[in-house]
């Protein structure tokens, strides 16, 4: 079986973690070719070629691929699809936007958020905010799937794939990029961090969210948030963990002032160790916490920060 893996490329750089995790799933399906589509994709292609198990890297370097616009990228993928049985990508915001479009253009279903590969046609995926796991067998000629990265280990390095530059597939100009508002941070990326500290509505304000950030920095952690914290303006949208936000599975997840709604649990309950700090001993978050502390976060978080390290 031939597999086309769409690499996650941001600003010309390969997102190694997301791509290498999806690669692990892709390798279980067949021989993997990686597509890097970006404006200036040479560095990303070189990085992808070094991943273990990549047979070939296709590099499509064009301005219209610079901002992950769905229409031109989907056109490119569809133009290559004839050579592959599977088209897969890490389930990032970019590929969730693009792959269903690709699938419909090929008249096949998309298989979203695959958490296990059973065989070349059969996959597991969570439904109902992770409250049920469905096993589906695709009857389509080609399988188009996004891979939930939090459930796969990253493939290692040591590959030396050939890199082939390919022509762009044109741009119908249906949409136009205007701007990105991306905060840069020295903290680890949320979906690949080993430790995540998340705050919820209980934190109470944007100012007090600094408590969460200080604890995170002490632990070298990424910062996450519940939907309520994001909606209330305490935290930016890209920190949201959950069914409709990011899915994380770090070694340690610390939930502070978060009640533990199923939609939040959907994004973090596969973490190795879960710590919950909440003043309400009945909060559902304690049902998934390995270590629960019933306390006021305004006392507990500063004390925890000072006693670590």
């Amino acid at each position: 079986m031939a597999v086309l893996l769409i690499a996650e490329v941001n600003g010309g750089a390969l997102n190694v973690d997301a791509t290498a995790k999806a690669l692990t799933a892709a390798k279980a399906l067949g021989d993997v070719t990686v597509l890097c589509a970006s404006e200036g994709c040479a560095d990303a292609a070189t990085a992808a070629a070094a991943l273990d198990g990549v047979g070939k890297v296709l590099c499509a370097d064009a301005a219209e691929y610079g901002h992950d616009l769905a229409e031109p990228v989907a056109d490119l993928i569809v133009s290559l699809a004839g050579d592959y049985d599977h088209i897969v990508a890490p389930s990032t915001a970019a590929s969730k936007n693009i792959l269903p479009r690709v699938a419909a253009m090929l008249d096949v279903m998309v298989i979203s958020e695959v958490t296990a590969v059973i065989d070349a046609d059969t996959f597991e995926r969570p439904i109902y905010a992770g409250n049920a796991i469905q096993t589906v067998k695709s009857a389509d000629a080609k399988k188009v799937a996004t891979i939930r990265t939090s459930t796969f280990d990253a493939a290692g390095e040591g590959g030396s794939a050939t890199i082939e530059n390919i022509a762009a597939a044109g741009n119908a100009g249906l949409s136009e990029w205007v701007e990105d508002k991306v905060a840069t941070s020295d903290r680890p990326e949320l979906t690949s961090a080993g430790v995540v500290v998340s705050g919820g509505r209980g934190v109470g304000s944007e100012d007090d969210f600094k408590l969460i950030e200080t604890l995170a920095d002490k632990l070298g952690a990424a910062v996450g948030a519940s939907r309520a914290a994001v909606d209330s303006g305490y935290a930016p949208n890209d920190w949201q963990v959950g069914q409709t936000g990011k899915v994380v599975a770090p070694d340690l997840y610390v939930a502070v002032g978060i009640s533990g709604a199923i939609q939040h649990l959907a994004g973090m309950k596969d973490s190795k160790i879960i710590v919950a700090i909440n003043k309400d001993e009945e909060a559902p978050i304690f049902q998934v916490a390995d270590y629960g502390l019933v306390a006021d976060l305004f006392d507990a978080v500063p004390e925890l920060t000072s006693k670590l390290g």
Partner: protein
Amino acid sequence: MKVLVPVKRVIDYNVKVRVKADGSGVDLANVKMSMNPFDEIAVEQAIRLKEAGTADEVVVVSIGVKQSQETLRNALAMGADRAILVVAADDVHTDIEPLAVAKILKAVVDEEQPGLVLAGKQAIDNDMNATGQMLSALLGWPQATFASELAVDGDTATVTREVDGGLQTIKVKMPAIVTVDLRLNEPRYASLPNIMKAKKKPLEEKTAADYGVDVSPRLQIVGTSEPAERAAGIKVGSIDELVEKLKEAGAV
């Protein structure tokens, strides 16, 4: 401009989901069903566009079992003008896949000629996050997914999208498909008088066959199981105890 809003009837987001013992799926008999929360946001946005004079008609459409007309009445009570029910299943446990939904929606779009389709980003039952993207592919229209801001200006829409790194703003040519995210607006509640009025609003009933769309699934459901349970944890009495436990576990 006409705005078309696809709305899905799904299990209410507050209901605890139960997997059937025989692994055949999730139990949906006698559980509370509601409009998919993202679709409420889409309906709200469409109504606001009408209130602002940008849109002149809001048409809602639902595909599924007959009972989906409750969902459509709910959208009409919020302020939509007209509804289309496309009956495509008779068992509440049958979920119509996004590809088939998109094909039916394409046929509805061909008939209705809306200037904008506002869909939800994701249905909270199948968690597919696919229908809007698939519909735009079938129509060859631009797509702006995961919208947290939307401004329509003549024949373009400027959309701010929630993406992994933060926010991205794009401009799309109309007609377009926009899928809405949680932060776009706060949907209104339907008032009692509006609920009464909605009973008289037009609701047209069709079938998938009327549109010539085959809704048979491409993904065969082999089985449905409970997720792995987490082992029960403990409560710690103090920060000192927490730090000690975390050190023992090698977590810090």
